[in-house]
């Protein structure tokens, strides 16, 4: 038999559940108050995330370097202190150099295709509880970034801008399970759809029954109308496996993405594609094998005695 206390708590639970369902219904019906609550939170979090990135990234590396210290002589302490300062400086410089290198790479890519871009630093990532693969950038609508703009890194596509505030923006990464992009096989006109799978492998579905794909083919973004959400020509990935099942209407396969989405520090948001479709200009060059030197030895005729 239920007590009065348990009845009361059951009533409280049911009323809170109904309230949650009411909130969900409001959100699904597009009540802007709820979506502005999230963007308001992003505006509050962005400066803290920026600060945390600045402090956390060099300090995280710095702590791993400190473990070997422990002697007590004053001189050694002083020298070690100087040494640590220099080490942290070196770590900081390495960090900056790595970011500069990424920036140079992404600017090279954007320059080749004549994309008008704005560069940004990654200040945070989406958490486990969100089940969506996202990153947060330190620039927003003040820098011209708008929803549905393409985001690229030095080696290719990263994702698409999902939402912006004045000083930050959230990017849906291309490995998110809800991510879809129309792709084209470089050098051909065969088209397909690439789907995010949550990891570094992507699923590819070709559109036409006559499309031929093979392992090693490079896939490029096909582009969208008005260049939103995707500008054309951005390298997406390389085909790693092709399914050959009898009776299949169209070819399917798996793709390895060009960009390592777990180690992004600097990316660029494409504001516009000035020169239109760059075609296959951005296809990454296959590594050239090192030339092998072959020496032919021709034996000289031995003097016959």
């Amino acid at each position, binding site marked *: 038999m239920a007590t009065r206390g348990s009845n009361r*708590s059951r009533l409280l639970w049911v009323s809170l559940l109904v309230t*949650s369902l009411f909130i969900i219904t409001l959100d699904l019906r597009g009540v802007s108050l709820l979506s502005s609550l999230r963007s308001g939170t992003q505006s509050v*979090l962005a400066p803290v995330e920026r600060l945390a990135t600045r402090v956390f990234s060099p300090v995280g590396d710095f702590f791993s370097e400190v473990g070997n210290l422990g002697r007590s002589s004053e001189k050694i302490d002083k020298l070690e202190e100087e040494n640590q300062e220099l080490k942290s400086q070196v770590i900081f410089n390495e960090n900056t150099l790595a970011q500069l290198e990424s920036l140079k790479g992404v600017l090279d890519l954007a320059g080749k295709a004549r994309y008008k871009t704005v560069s940004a630093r990654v200040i945070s*990532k989406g958490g486990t*509880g969100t*089940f969506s693969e996202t990153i947060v950038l330190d620039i927003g609508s003040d820098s011209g970034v708008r929803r549905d703009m393409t985001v690229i890194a030095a080696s290719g596509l990263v994702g698409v801008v999902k939402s912006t505030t004045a000083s930050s923006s959230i990017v849906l990464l291309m490995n*998110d*399970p809800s991510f879809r992009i129309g792709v084209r096989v470089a050098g051909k006109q065969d088209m397909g759809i690439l789907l995010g799978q949550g990891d570094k492998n992507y699923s590819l579905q070709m559109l036409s029954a006559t499309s031929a794909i093979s392992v090693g083919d490079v896939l490029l973004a096909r582009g969208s109308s008005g260049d939103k959400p995707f500008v054309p020509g951005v390298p997406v990935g390389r085909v790693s496996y092709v399914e050959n099942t009898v009776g299949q209407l169209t070819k399917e396969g798996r793709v390895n993405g060009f960009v390592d989405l777990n180690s992004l520090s600097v990316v660029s948001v494409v504001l516009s594609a000035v020169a239109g479709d760059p075609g296959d200009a951005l296809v990454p060059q296959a590594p050239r094998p090192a030339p092998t030197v072959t020496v032919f030895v021709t034996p000289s005729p031995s003097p016959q005695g």
Partner: protein
Amino acid sequence: MEINRLPKVLLIFLSLFLIQETLINQINFLVAGFSLYLTFFMAWVIQDQRNSAVVTGFIAGLILDLSPTLDAPFGLWTLVLTSMSYLLSSNVRAALDAELSPLVMLSVAVLASSFALALFLLFGAILGQEVGSASYLFRSISGNALWSALLSPLYIPLAMKLYKVTLTARQR
């Protein structure tokens, strides 16, 4: 829940949300990720009385729904955490000893947070959300369980201590 406990609970979960969003989310965990917020919540709620657990679940869910990187409808985490808090404080708590050992709390935190993630996915799928491949979901949930177990010496004592701080003199 007594009204004078409410500001303290709100402050604790807001601070935790800030830590999760600005620091923990920046760490590259080897396998999937770790939700300190979720596991801390489970370790908290298992200690709580039924009424206050349900209110805490509702508040914690509302805060988690504020996450800007979340793609699910607003209120989904509120629904999940309110349900979980009732389940834990009435059904699970009744089956456990009055004095909770750290091992019991660890098991509850790991299993309940995995169950909450699965429930979130299920409700999300019913509402038309993309949930991803089975391997991705398995990796995400088991990765969170692994880190929840490994990092439990850090957050379980914290959850126990902070829970006691919020209690009124009469409740202690």
